[in-house]
């Protein structure tokens, strides 16, 4: 399938990642500091167990590879048996960090058609039953949210959790993580596809070729940072008012011979764009 918009899948465990790597045909990215797999616009990052690793790995990744991602955190979670069923996949609508008490909320804008649940992120595995945990429990969702929200808006974050156990230590050895993920691959693919087509990415007023022509013009004209910013804003306004900024490019074709000429020509451009 073809994915136009960038997707970043993050998992804590290799066992969670392997079925996804195979399903989407991802290849390891060599020479990267993080455990990264990629095909076309889909990237998958394995960050390791626990909040600290999630935070460090995701932050580093976003510094090196910034983009307008759809973030999809996929993983297993403990579930309170009163409200969840082992093997079922849930979309998370509230993330509660047990140690800090903070809450996080991915926006629920899209008709995903999955069951929803809150999740509590804990520091270490819960082994003695659900106790006071009313929904799901994992060890990374809050850190994933917190470390990505500066770069990725909360309406492009999806947290998909598959219940692997009821938080009873006796169950742990029998958990087959790859099988749990495999049983939901088509659902995961459907969700990613749905978000891809949903229109949740903001389309800029100026299109890609206009932005690059603008940037060429700024370089040719040697505009200051303030002038460049004003030019972009004025060009956006012109595009909205008259549908095109094509005449602008010819006004910026030749480099000015002095600062005075640059400023005079900038003033002419300003007047044109304000008309």
């Amino acid at each position, binding site marked *: 399938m073809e994915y136009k918009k960038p997707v970043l899948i993050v998992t804590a465990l290799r066992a969670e990642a392997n079925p996804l790597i195979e399903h989407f045909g991802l290849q390891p990215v060599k020479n990267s500091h993080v455990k990264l797999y990629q095909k076309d616009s889909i990237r998958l990052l394995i960050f390791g167990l626990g909040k600290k690793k999630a935070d460090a790995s995701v932050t580093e990744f976003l510094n090196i590879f910034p983009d307008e991602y759809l973030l999809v955190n996929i993983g297993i979670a403990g579930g309170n048996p009163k409200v969840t069923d082992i093997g079922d996949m849930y979309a998370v609508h509230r993330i509660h960090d047990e140690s800090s008490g903070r809450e996080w909320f991915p926006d629920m804008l899209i008709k995903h058609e999955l069951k929803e649940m809150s999740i509590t992120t804990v520091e270490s595995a819960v082994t003695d039953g659900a106790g006071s945990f009313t929904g799901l429990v994992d060890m990374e969702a809050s850190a994933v949210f917190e470390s990505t929200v500066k770069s990725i808006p909360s309406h492009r974050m999806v947290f998909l959790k598959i219940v692997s156990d009821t938080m009873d230590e006796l169950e742990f050895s029998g958990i087959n993580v790859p099988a749990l993920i495999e049983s939901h691959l088509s659902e995961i693919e459907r969700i990613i596809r749905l978000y891809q087509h949903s229109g949740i990415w903001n*389309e800029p007023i100026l299109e890609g070729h206009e932005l690059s022509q603008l940037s060429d013009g700024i370089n040719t004209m040697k505009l200051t940072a303030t002038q460049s910013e004003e030019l972009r804003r004025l060009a956006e306004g012109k595009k909205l008012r008259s549908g095109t900024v094509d005449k602008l490019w010819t006004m910026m074709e030749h480099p000015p011979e002095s600062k005075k000429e640059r400023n005079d020509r900038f003033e002419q451009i300003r007047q044109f764009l304000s008309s």
Partner: protein
Amino acid sequence: MTDLSKSDNFFLPDFSHIYVEEGAENFSMTADILKRLPSAEAVSVQDYKSVFNRSGQDFQAQKKSMKLIIAVKKDGFLYKATDVVQDAGYRNFMYTTPILNCLYNCRYCFLQGMYPSANLVVFVNDLDFFSSAAIAVNERSVKDEPLLLSVSYSTDLLAFENVVPWTRKWMDFCESNTDIVIEVRTKSALFSAIKDENPSEQVLLAWTLSPEVVAEMYEWDAPPIDRRINAVQQAIEKGWKVRLCLDPVIPVPGWRKIYSDFIEKIKKDIPAEGIRDVTVGTFRMGKDFFKRARKRMPPSDVYYQNYEERNGVISLPESESAAVADKIKGQLADFISDDRIAVWD
């Protein structure tokens, strides 16, 4: 430009989720709201600000599927009015915010620069609002005039009446406190929600009206102008004297003719004796809100005009504003007396 909207059906309906702040569940208004929206997913939250004020929100994306947040307001129930709000002659003038954000998404609305979120917050501790209003009435500076309280400052209160009957609650409050006048400014067609209330001098029902072409460009998800006019007609038939707000007048290309035709339509469709007064204003917005709103990139030319900044407010140059006001006033001259036309300047 691809901008798939709700009609493309990828989006959950508005209020598919209701975030309920801990403590708010004890108020009867909360139970009423949850009853009115039975299929919504209720999510319990510790503090409404952790949903509403969180970082990483996209106002325009959230507008495609707005959520409801039910909360208890802790303080700051009434505020002194700002420069950009019209007082229309009242010297004791305050506003209150029982609901934050609006069902509609007018392109020129300051809310998109004011709040980090497009989700609506409904405060349910009505009695706290009323006791603060009673105190403000007692403490008003000009004692021989009533307190004018704008109850729709941060929302369109009437538009939301079928979910939360806040307008009716304020109307009831007015019955027990004669020194207050409330202004309910709206673009909704929902007069039916309050039609059994008796007309009152203390309740200023105020409809914002714009020519069809302006409404389609800038108020596209508010009710069409004919439905608003119809609501005005219903109110007048019931004995209300209404305020008409030609605010903001937007000088689109050909605006003189567009507004001229529109005012003739008003004169034809709305009986002058049913009009209490008219307010006229052009686009204006606090500088910080303006910057933030423009950054959020609503695809609208309203943020790209030749504005001026005066005292921290972005607006048309004074001469242009004055020309617009003169034109509108002149044309209303044979319809309503000059002293009943208030111009924001």
